[in-house]
């Protein structure tokens, strides 16, 4: 048998096969053309765009900017504090999406006071949902330590969920870069933006703590938790970064829980002997004023915490809380 004999193929069959092969190539090419996406993934397109943090603040009301409540139970004190500022209805409108930012920085049991009191978080969640008629309440933070552990061990995850909030844990895709106009440090820096993207309100709830680097950790420092990236580099410029955070994040309301104060070895604490009862809770629309009063519970003056003056000079609020005519009350 010759080589020619082996490859002998009828003309009709040869043509049929050629046409089939040709059609297959054309179909594959057409499909590839149809499915080809010349743009990079959508997440990339979003991330490359700088975002602007919305201003969540409410209009100031004379004599209703800061309330200071004495009482042993922070959840009860918070109700009184908010009522005296005009009620939750002033801050949350029906159908709003509310983001609550507690301090969940550590995987630390609630008894150690390094994180926001879970019962206080739950109270504010319920208040927003029940009386504020919020559509949704999101509780979130960006702990550097494992977020699941932090929300679990701090008790905040369980308390917030039970109260009806949605927990949002950070993922890399949730960060977007932003710049603070005139800022020295927050320039093209990633922030935890996802929660704020669709939010109508932002409420910060912070425990009152001593802080090794900044002197005190209160409501302004609480927003440090919304920074992404290797944010520890800002510890070298702690006063500037806290003042810039006060400019970048304009919350609807802040609550500073000084019922139990971490007086020493902050911000981690560790021993219950680091904690002292002050039985005081402060709520307000001016974080600088709230923190300025909070400093007194740590036996500090405004001048001991330079970030307060820096923030005030930048227009984030007033260090002279008495000028705002704080409303004092007590809850038994």
């Amino acid at each position, binding site marked *: 048998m010759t080589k020619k004999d082996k490859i002998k193929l*009828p003309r009709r069959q040869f043509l049929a096969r050629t046409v089939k092969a040709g059609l297959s190539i054309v179909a594959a090419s057409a499909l590839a053309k149809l499915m080809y996406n010349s743009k990079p993934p959508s997440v990339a397109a979003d991330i490359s765009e700088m975002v602007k943090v919305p201003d969540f603040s409410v209009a100031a009301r004379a004599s209703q900017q800061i309330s200071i409540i004495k009482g042993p139970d922070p959840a009860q004190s918070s109700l009184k504090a908010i009522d005296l500022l005009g009620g939750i209805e002033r801050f949350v409108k029906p159908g709003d999406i509310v983001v609550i930012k507690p301090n969940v920085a550590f995987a630390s049991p609630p*008894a150690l006071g390094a994180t926001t009191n879970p019962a206080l978080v739950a109270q504010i969640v319920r208040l927003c949902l029940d009386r504020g008629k919020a559509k949704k309440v999101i509780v979130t933070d960006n702990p550097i330590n494992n977020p699941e552990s932090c929300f679990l061990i701090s008790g905040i995850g369980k308390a917030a969920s039970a109260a009806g909030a949605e927990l949002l844990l950070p993922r890399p895709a949730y*960060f977007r870069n932003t710049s603070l106009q005139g800022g020295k440090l927050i320039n093209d820096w990633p922030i935890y933006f996802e929660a704020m993207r669709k939010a109508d309100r932002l409420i910060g709830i912070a425990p009152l703590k001593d802080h090794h680097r900044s002197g005190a950790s209160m409501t302004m420092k609480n927003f440090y938790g919304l920074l*992404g990236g290797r944010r520890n580099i800002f510890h070298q410029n702690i006063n500037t970064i806290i003042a810039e955070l006060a400019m970048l994040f304009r919350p609807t309301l802040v609550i500073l829980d000084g019922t139990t104060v971490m007086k020493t070895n*902050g911000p981690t604490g*560790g*021993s219950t002997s680091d904690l002292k009862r002050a039985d005081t809770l402060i709520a307000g629309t001016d974080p600088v004023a709230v923190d300025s009063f909070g400093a007194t519970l740590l036996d500090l003056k405004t001048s001991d915490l330079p970030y307060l003056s820096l923030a005030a000079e930048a227009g984030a609020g007033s260090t002279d809380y008495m000028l705002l005519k704080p409303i004092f009350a007590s809850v038994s």
Partner: protein
Amino acid sequence: MSPARHQPTRLESIVAIALTAIPVIILVLIFTAHKTTDISRFGIQSSITEKPQSWGLLTEDKSAIDLAGLAPQGFKPFGHGESYDEETLYEKINGKAPLYTESGFVKLSTQRYVSEKNDELTFELYIYNMGSAANAFSVYSIQRRAESSPADGMPFAYRTENALYLADGRYYCELIGSSDSPLLLDAVDFTATALIENLKDAGPAEIPQLAIFPSQNLIPNTFILYLNGAFGFAGLTNTFSAKYKVNDETVTAFISKQPDPAAAKELADQYAEFVIVNGGEKIAPSDPAVKYIDFYGSLEIVSVEDSFVLGIHQADDRMAADIILALIRNSLAKENQ
């Protein structure tokens, strides 16, 4: 009539194998590309994408100590052990990291334990390798809680209502309970004892400089070692302080060893100047070799004894301060003989 089935030639076989191999190669290339994609091309910052990789729980502890094995009876390890170096320490303790990283920090190993019967009873063990006994003692002493009681049988150790803290050689350790439950505190004690037995490479636990402080009038367990910036003055390094009681007055004495007497005198002058620049006023000394400065109603005393800078910090009572200063000077004179 159907054509006879022909046998493929060698060339046809090679072409067929090559054509079959092409999609396989393409699949391998796609898989490889996905594994090594540089997502920064799409504008995602590497600082963000690195984050999940650096979360503590993802880093299992590789220390020589079997942390899980330190679980006391009735308790079990809660999650994996974690470890942090100088770069990642802030992920665990955030704003407190500089206290350690500025004091010779090498590594932190941690492990949580939980009661087998009550998951609200937990404690966490922190083992800071500080590189030297002085560094470990420094972070131990600076953070020492006033409301505490000594823990007997351990090198430098104290208890609070819910925790136990100790320094052993190069290690500073914390065992922090979630409550003051007696069951939990017993478990903490067990693990602390087992831990010390396992810190075989801790090195000497003694801090020789503490012996310079005379025991007369000394308030126990009030030693502090400032590696840097004692009393707010950057130049005052490696400074030990201790509290004394004279009648009802509490007096803080300090010493700082310098390379030679000239360096000690220069540092003493600089510190006195620092206090004056910040609002202090010189007052008549009892001894010409000693500087007395009134600092907003409290008394700062600075002196030199051979290679040591010594002094009294913010005393309320001059007589009590002079008594303690004399005690320290005598002790240093003996030390220098």
